[in-house]
């Protein structure tokens, strides 16, 4: 028992995407997790804690789930928590506007014998739509605590805290389904002997529905003979009900929900169509949606990230702050105290920790990535991405992806490493592989993009060639991958959440969380890269590596000096681009060479961090294949482009 007291009781938050789960989490814990208006961006489980009446509770925020029977990876993650943890309470958060649609999952949670507290969130919007809810009646009908809330304004938070600390599990009375279904469920219940987290009734229903995880669980917990018997009976039932089992269960649950909701919801007037509805329709209509997308790209990416972030901010940090105020005293100080040459080189030399590591990370990369994340978080919070997803779905189908993949791809323009992580929200393995590959090959991250845009902006034609070439290659490789990889095209379906005015706090929290994780992730790598390069320079190894690569680089018609940029490119994509920048300012490259170098570098291998994430997400084999493919593609494309530009004299 003492063990029990030491570890704090757990509170698990569950619910559909977009119902404000993360807002509840933040309100309870005061901590920052990313609050998202895009179905499926929080794949990881966030943990925090809070104190209620002097007792410490651990809070777990799960990815969105629609039902107890998981279909996507996120749902599997969420359900796994319910299968393994022993929570003090499970807080089911639902959207008041869609009570009828979300209540079936509440039923499933209750049915599973979990200690459920229901939070009916977004009450204010429901009221605006003319809905009146009698939650006391609902509480009576369901037999569990029900709390009305507007969590973004913390309305209902005290009641929730009270309900958590008062919570005592009461035995529930099962909801009764159609007689024939009940008979089959009973048959299975009679055959289960093991001890399960979920109630036997819920376990039985999931078994009949052929839930793989539950089947595995049962095969572990039951004796061989019991399991065999169980298998036979479930197979018989599943087969007999093959035509409409899932449908029948869904309909039965809805019938129960209708009873539960009788007299709970009353509607008065239908509200008039607000402006957001109109804007939403414009975004979804291709005729108006395409110009809106162009506006977003032009103002959001080109003007704000490219112009303000990569221009104004970088000039200020790098050109002004570092060059004029920070670097001179620092270098001066180091020159006086670091007398050993190797030590000075390590810290403040050409590839030094200070010069290359910290200065690049803080002054060059952070402003660009930061502004990108700000735009991304702003768009995410409004609910623009699902609308973009449905707009590009047809095009993405051609390259073997569904509209859903628009998120990792767009995020890739910020940070390919983060985007590779997010590919796990895609549904099929095939889709995940294609997206991972396209990210590694043709999507430049914002740091790289910032430098390359700066590099090429002097020669607008070069910028056009670079853009057109990358877009064509992106489509071509995607198109070929969709043909070559086995498996079927993904099916697209997505809930379109209502457009909403972005909440300043949400946007800031999202941006800061992303910037923070980016910074925590990159700074060590920048330093690591500096040390490697320093060691390489000191031992002469760097020259050897550069010598190995230089024939390749020469074959592309580029000066040997570019090799350094390519080798750097592996440590951080933007290192390479920044290296090119130095070469260009010293006038070593022609416009054609610059374009070829920029294209090759953009395509060239992902940075160390992205490669590591690729291994983690896709496995070493696929990651290695993609790595080799991308390298070969980068150099052969560079070679081809060089020949093409020389032959046509397009940029001469």
């Amino acid at each position, binding site marked *: 028992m003492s063990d029990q007291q030491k570890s704090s009781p757990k509170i698990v938050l569950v619910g559909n995407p977009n119902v404000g789960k993360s807002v509840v989490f933040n309100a309870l814990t005061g901590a920052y997790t990313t609050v998202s208006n895009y179905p499926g961006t929080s794949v990881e489980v966030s943990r925090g804690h809070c104190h209620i009446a002097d007792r410490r509770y651990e809070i777990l925020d799960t990815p969105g789930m629609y039902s107890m029977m998981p279909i996507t990876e996120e749902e599997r993650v969420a359900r796994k928590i319910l299968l393994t943890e022993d929570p003090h309470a499970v807080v089911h958060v639902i959207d008041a506007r869609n009570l009828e*649609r979300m209540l079936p999952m509440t039923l499933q949670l209750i049915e599973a014998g979990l200690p459920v507290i229901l939070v009916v969130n977004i009450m204010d919007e429901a009221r605006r739509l003319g809905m009146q809810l009698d939650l006391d009646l609902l509480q009576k009908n369901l037999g569990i605590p029900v709390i009305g809330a507007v969590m973004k304004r913390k309305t209902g938070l005290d009641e929730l805290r009270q309900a958590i600390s008062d919570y005592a599990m009461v035995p529930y009375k099962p909801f009764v389904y159609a007689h024939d279904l009940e008979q089959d469920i009973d048959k299975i219940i009679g055959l289960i002997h093991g001890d399960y987290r979920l109630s036997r009734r819920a376990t039985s229903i999931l078994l009949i529905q052929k839930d793989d995880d539950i089947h595995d669980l049962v095969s572990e917990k039951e004796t061989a003979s019991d399991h065999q018997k169980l298998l036979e009976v479930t197979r018989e039932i599943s087969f007999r009900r093959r035509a409409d089992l899932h449908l029948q269960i869904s*309909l039965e649950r809805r019938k129960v929900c209708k009873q539960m909701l009788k007299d709970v919801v009353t509607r008065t007037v239908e509200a008039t169509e607000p402006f957001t509805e109109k804007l939403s329709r414009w975004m979804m209509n291709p005729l108006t949606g395409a110009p809106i997308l162009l506006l977003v790209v032009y103002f959001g990416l080109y003007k704000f990230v490219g112009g303000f972030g990569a221009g104004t901010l970088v000039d200020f940090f790098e050109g002004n702050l570092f060059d004029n105020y920070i670097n001179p005293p620092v270098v001066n100080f180091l020159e006086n105290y670091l007398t050993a040459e190797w030590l000075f080189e390590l810290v403040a030399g050409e590839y030094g920790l200070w010069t290359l590591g910290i200065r690049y990370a803080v002054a060059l990369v952070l402003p660009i990535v930061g502004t990108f994340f700000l735009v991304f978080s702003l768009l995410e919070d409004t609910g623009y991405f699902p609308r973009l997803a*449905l707009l590009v*779905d047809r095009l993405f189908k051609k390259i073997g992806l569904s509209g859903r993949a628009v998120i990792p791809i767009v995020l890739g323009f910020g940070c390919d490493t983060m985007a590779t992580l997010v590919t796990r929200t895609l549904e099929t393995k095939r889709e995940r592989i294609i997206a991972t590959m396209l990210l590694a090959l043709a999507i430049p991250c914002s740091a790289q993009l910032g430098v390359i845009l700066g590099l090429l902006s002097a020669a607008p034609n070069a910028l056009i060639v670079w853009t057109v070439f990358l877009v064509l290659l992106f489509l071509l490789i995607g198109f070929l991958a969709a043909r070559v990889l086995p498996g079927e095209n993904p099916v697209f379906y997505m809930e379109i959440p209502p457009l909403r005015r972005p909440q300043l706090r949400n946007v800031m929290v999202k941006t800061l969380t992303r910037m923070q994780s980016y910074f925590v992730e990159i700074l060590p790598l920048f330093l690591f890269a500096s040390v490697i390069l320093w060691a390489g320079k000191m031992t002469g190894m760097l020259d050897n590596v550069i010598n190995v690569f230089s024939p390749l680089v020469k074959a592309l018609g580029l000066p040997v000096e570019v090799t350094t940029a390519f080798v750097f490119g592996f440590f951080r994509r933007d290192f390479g681009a920044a290296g090119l920048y130095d070469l260009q300012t010293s006038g070593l490259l022609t416009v054609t060479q610059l374009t070829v170098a920029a294209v090759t570098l953009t395509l060239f291998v992902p940075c160390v961090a992205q490669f590591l994430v690729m291994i983690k997400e896709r496995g070493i084999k696929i990651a290695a294949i993609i790595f080799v493919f991308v390298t070969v593609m980068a150099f052969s494309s560079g070679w081809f482009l060089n020949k093409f530009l020389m032959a046509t004299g397009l940029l001469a």
Partner: protein
Amino acid sequence: MERLSEKAEEILESLWVMTVEGDNVGCLLTSLKVTRDSEELVELIQRSYVEIRGDRVCLRKEGRPEAQMTVRRHRLAERLTMDILGIAGDEGNEQACEFEHLLRQGVDVKLCTLLNHPTTCPHGNPIPPGECCIDARQQGEPGIVALTELKSGESGEIAYLAASDDKKMQKLMSMGVLPGSQLLLVQKFPSYIFKVGQSQFAVDDMLAREIHIRRPVK
């Protein structure tokens, strides 16, 4: 009267497609791959369904109803083999050609009712309405159609979800897209966007084809 031979039916079908639906004046004997004294042609001439003018075979007024029904049976058979039995491509076409000759003596009516009086074949050609279709329309029977057939702004009740992909159907169901719910189609291109209750969903045409809607009685 005795039943027409299968070969004679094929000729009527070709004549209908080429001269009634198309704008040809009769069909060349050679393109029908028959000669003047082919058994099947003689059969049709005896019933005055067709006549020969020069080197062309023409459909006569007397032959039109029979030709129309033959085409109807063929296209219903296509619906059966391709939609219900799921046989695609050439195989589907071949099977449909076999099936159509079995659809007589009321079997076509039963099939048509089962398929809910379809108006087009899988290739998009019109299926001439039979008496059963006309009756059904007069009784104001609400048609059940795939979501793809609805116009933007049209609404109806979800009749059933065709279950070719179990997981996807479950997903739709768990999101609340369930038979009996009212659905409003908002937009058809580039994706299908519809509203159920207060929620909006987007699906691609693959999935939209599997959601079947009962149109309200007019």
